[in-house]
């Protein structure tokens, strides 16, 4: 629907997600995603040079371990936000799967069996969200605020304020060990597999194209043959399962199943996704930008912790970055719409609105 090549098209499209009239290299290099990646690399280089101990051997391991659950959940969250929906219940699903893993393991079940049940619980949570949003037609913001409280309530209710900390070393080592002699945590292997799966799903499949279409205009998507309800349902189920997996990793890494595990993670995930260039209004965003967004927040927090900066300041910096990343493109688009208009008004006034309103 937005693949119109002709700039003289009479009806100006309000929002586009890719500019197919530009050459390929330009479409890849001069994008918001590349800006985030460049900023991430720059901050990383800056920290390596200027922050004491950041270039130490432990940094990469700790950094990846810390951001692993956020990286995992950011994958389905990106797809959901591109459809114009949101899932606020992810951290509660993490907490619930953590508690279930602990409770089942405590009752004598092996870790793999307990993990499968925890993943099924995540699937059920996602299916509940998906059913209410896709088939009942309720707004995802309202539904997932509700299930955020509901799942967290069940998690805390099951264990109270106690924690289950008896996990076999074999399994907790799996969550903390690195690949061979490298500094890369083992959890990066399932993460890499999931990333490839999500990249294929979003960027190289008709299902993925449907996701963008829903985000731009779900009614139009419906009429072009996209099964809007089924797509949304699948995405929320995926989100539930991946969140449960992140919850299992989280539990084994810290060796502690608690109802309040991962409280507040949903905001970190959403912040990273938005920072990575995904539009909160849907229809725009790419996974490589999101991955860079997650790493950027991780590098900033790690460097600031090494500099003994308090967590409040870290939050302020990430918050400002987020606000800037949302505002800056709009400001730039606004100024660019002013500048060419002055120059171009006398000769060809008809084509300026098109350029001015092409979305970011």
């Amino acid at each position, binding site marked *: 629907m937005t693949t119109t090549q002709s700039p003289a098209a009479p009806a100006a499209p309000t929002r586009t997600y890719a500019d197919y009239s530009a050459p390929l290299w330009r479409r890849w290099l001069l*994008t918001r995603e*590349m800006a985030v990646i460049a900023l991430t690399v720059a901050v990383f280089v800056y920290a390596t040079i*200027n922050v004491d101990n950041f270039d130490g051997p432990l940094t990469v391991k700790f950094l990846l371990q810390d951001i692993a659950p956020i990286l995992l959940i950011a994958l389905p969250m990106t797809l959901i936000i591109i459809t114009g929906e949101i899932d606020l219940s992810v951290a509660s699903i993490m907490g619930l799967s953590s508690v279930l893993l602990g409770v089942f393991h405590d009752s004598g079940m092996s870790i793999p069996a307990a993990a499968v049940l925890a993943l099924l619980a995540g699937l059920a949570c996602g299916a509940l969200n998906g059913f209410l949003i896709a088939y009942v037609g309720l707004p995802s913001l309202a539904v997932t605020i509700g299930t955020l409280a509901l799942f967290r309530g069940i998690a805390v209710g099951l264990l109270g304020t106690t924690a289950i900390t008896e996990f076999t070393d074999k399994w907790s080592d799996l969550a903390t060990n690195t690949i061979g002699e490298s500094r890369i945590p083992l959890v990066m292997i399932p993460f890499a597999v999931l990333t490839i799966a999500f990249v294929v799903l979003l960027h190289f499949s008709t299902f993925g194209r449907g996701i963008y279409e829903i985000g731009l205009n779900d009614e139009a998507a419906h009429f072009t043959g996209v099964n809007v309800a089924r797509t949304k349902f699948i995405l929320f189920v995926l989100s539930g399962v991946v969140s449960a997996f992140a919850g299992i990793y989280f539990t084994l890494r810290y060796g502690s199943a608690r109802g309040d595990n991962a409280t507040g993670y949903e905001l970190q995930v959403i912040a990273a996704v938005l920072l990575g260039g995904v539009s909160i209004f849907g229809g725009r965003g790419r996974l490589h930008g999101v991955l860079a967004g997650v790493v950027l927040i991780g590098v900033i927090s790690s460097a600031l912790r090494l500099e003994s900066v308090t967590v409040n300041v870290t939050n302020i910096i990430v918050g400002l970055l987020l606000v800037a990343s949302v505002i800056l493109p709009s400001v*730039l688009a606004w100024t660019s719409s002013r500048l060419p208009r002055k120059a171009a008004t006398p000769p060809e006034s008809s084509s300026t609105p098109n350029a001015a309103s092409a979305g970011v």
Partner: protein
Amino acid sequence: MKFHTRRPIALAAIILTASAALTACGSDDGGDSGSDSGSDGGGELSMTMLPKNLGNPYFDTSTAGAEAAAEDLGIEIEEVGPETASPDAQVSYINTVAQQGKDALILSANDPEALCDAIDEARSADVKVITFDADTNPDCRDLFINQATAEGIAAKQLELISEQIGGKGEIAILSAAANATNQNAWIDMMEKELADNPDYADIELVDTVYGDDDDQKSFDQTEALLQNHPDLKGIISPTTVGIAAAARYLSDSSSKGKVALTGLGTPNQMREYVENGTVESFALWNPSDLGALATYAAAALANGDISGEEGDSFEAGDLGEFEVGADGVVLLGEPFTFDADNIGDFDF
């Protein structure tokens, strides 16, 4: 045409990258010389204090004690910590200490097990790990600075109530939940001591009630105690919620000044009732001393003066000499008594 909207973003990207890269290069020299003059491996010890969470008056007091001890020893100490008291939030700070290669980490653990992996990693980077206030599994840390033992807490409370009621009369206990392990251990010890110790022969424990650490319920239970036992002389409440609620009830009732109240409380909660005469004295430990002792112990370990074995002893400034007990536990001493003379010195 649409390209126009992309270019400014790209431009912004380039400017951001360039400016970040330039700052990096520009301050390159400064950064390097900074780390050289940082003298990490020098004679001066450098430590990190990690409380359960920041902005908690109790830990602010223990950190102040630690800082005073650090100044006395001429070592460097800094406080870091999470906003909320959760174990996963503490792990990233423990990791940071490992990265920084500090000499010691003094921490109050949010979970006895969950921190062990991170602590092991820090210890393998030659960081000495000392817990205070809340311990981890004894295998993970080098030393635990224990604020008070159960025996000490039970004995102190009986001593205070006996003093306040003149050594004879009926007393009752206002506890937290009926299944609270620590509360029940203290109550058992108090019952045993009352039965065995001839000094307490004239004191009779007539009732034990439970306020579930709920302010209103503790308040109501106090009222019920006074009605059911008209001859009651004193109440022991070994829980901070209970003692504050009981004090609030007593201060407005006709029993004020007639029924003694003691137990475990915090100065900020109890100040009003000590000042208006409802409560004569109560106990807890002194968090400032606890922080100071942890710092002295950490310094002794990091300097190699002690190895943390049972029987090792070290000097802790004004606090005196301390010995390491079984399982690497150092005991601060018997609980600290707060009364009208000293309550003004504390803010937690």
